């Protein structure tokens, strides 16, 4: 019998597909410019010039973010807008944009991703005053290694920025992209950052995109990746006494799921946010992407809405459908935590998004040939 229809809040969603309509958190990453004052070797930019949105266009898109968070019923504090580039501080209207964002500070958290060069004492003070922003500064190791990847003087520049941000009590975290070049320095860098008063180090996996393809020889083998996860767990325990320092897990760390690990560890495993439907990316020209590191264009925010794309994009539903995972993953005991690995790493490596993660040590002992799955149909265009 017809009894009308039900608004979403009345529906019990459990672990079915409808969970994509009420995820526990949601992250929008928004790139305001592709311009940058550095030329880091591991960067996923490809040197192509991209037209930037005007301030008026940015302003028109911002309410869409709120609408998405509201429709998905994301609780205050669990909605996040990460702002990046390029180097976002290069935009003349950057602070005007940040002021707009502060209107939403009750419900949205925001992280600014920067190389730190343009941070001054005055800027750090302003960020503190605005009250909603934390800052993520990128570092790739200690001085020599960092500068070999990010350019001469980059280490001192970043540390100067970190000190200014700390002095002004802006929450500051550091992010590092893990390669063979900096693997042995994670321990030293973490200890140094702790001394500086930083309490969070995020270690991202290498994705061979854009300029970053040049570093492909530095990609960790699966066994090195596994070994790193174990070492990181130990270091985490050691540095985190009294909750003073933690390694934040990234969305690419689904493969770190280990059945034997304690349940409190398993509970906080993150996995690919494209697969679990908790992420959208707004690119510099307004394109709505699955993710910056797995950049499938889903629409453009000047004519489509984030909410409609999140709900309607067949490509997104294809990525979310776990039946589309590779058979090797589907029979893996860790699949329910890992969800088949990081789309970005698989796609950049194999040019195929529906195959296992090349750094997964349950399948590969060393990095596999890049054409291993050439006959396997990719999903994104199906």
């Amino acid at each position, binding site marked *: *019998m*017809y*009894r*009308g*229809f*039900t*608004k*979403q809040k009345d*529906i019990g969603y459990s672990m*079915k*597909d*409808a969970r*994509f*309509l009420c995820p526990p958190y949601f992250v929008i990453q928004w790139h305001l410019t592709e311009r940058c004052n550095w030329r880091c070797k591991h960067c996923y930019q490809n040197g192509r010039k991209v037209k930037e949105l005007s301030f008026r266009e940015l302003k028109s898109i911002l309410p869409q973010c709120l*609408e998405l968070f*509201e*429709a998905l019923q994301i609780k205050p504090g669990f909605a996040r807008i990460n702002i990046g580039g390029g180097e976002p501080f290069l935009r003349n209207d950057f602070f005007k944009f940040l002021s707009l964002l502060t209107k939403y500070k009750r419900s949205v958290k925001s992280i600014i991703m920067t190389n730190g060069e343009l941070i001054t004492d005055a800027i750090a003070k302003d960020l503190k005053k605005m009250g909603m922003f934390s800052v993520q500064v990128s570092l790739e190791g200690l001085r020599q290694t960092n500068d070999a990847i990010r350019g001469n003087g980059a280490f001192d520049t970043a540390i100067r920025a970190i000190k200014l941000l700390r002095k002004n009590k802006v929450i500051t975290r550091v992010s590092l992209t893990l390669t063979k070049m900096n693997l042995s320095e994670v321990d030293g860098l973490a200890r140094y950052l702790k001394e500086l008063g930083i309490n969070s180090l995020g270690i991202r996996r290498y994705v061979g995109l854009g300029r970053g393809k040049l570093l492909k020889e530095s990609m960790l083998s699966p066994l090195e990746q596994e070994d790193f996860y174990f070492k990181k767990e130990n270091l985490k325990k050691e540095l985190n006494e009294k909750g003073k320092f933690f390694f934040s897990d990234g969305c690419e760390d689904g493969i770190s799921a280990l059945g034997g690990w304690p349940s409190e560890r398993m509970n906080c495993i993150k996995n690919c946010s494209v697969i679990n439907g908790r992420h959208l990316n707004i690119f510099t020209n307004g394109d709505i992407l699955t993710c910056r590191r797995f950049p499938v264009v889903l629409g453009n925010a000047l004519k489509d*809405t984030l*909410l*409609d794309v999140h*709900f*309607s994009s067949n490509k997104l*539903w294809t990525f979310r459908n776990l039946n589309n995972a590779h058979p090797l993953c589907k029979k893996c005991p860790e699949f329910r935590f890992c969800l088949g690995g990081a789309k970005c790493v698989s796609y950049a490596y194999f040019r195929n998004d529906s195959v296992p993660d090349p750094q997964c040590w349950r399948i590969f002992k060393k990095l596999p040939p890049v054409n291993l799955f050439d006959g396997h149909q990719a999903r994104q265009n199906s």
Partner: protein
Amino acid sequence: MKVNLLDKCVLHNKDIVSWRIIDKQVIFLHKNEKSFYELNEVAGFIWQKAVSKNSIKKIIALLSQYYDIDRQVAERDTLACIEDLLNRKILVIR
């Protein structure tokens, strides 16, 4: 009104509604209200037959056959559902 409606076809109003089947149920996004709605089983059946370009008369017959119910009951339910959704501009007459 009802007599006229029987020979008509309806479809979803693309300007304000996107829809898809999630967990075997029809869910639609009301783009103006920025909310998701779920149709119950019968309404979902009617919706899917409607967007497959069946006339309302045909939908009534299909509903009656599928659920093994009287034609009058099927007609009452189908018209109640479609009129409700038309009034809310979620469906439009083709």
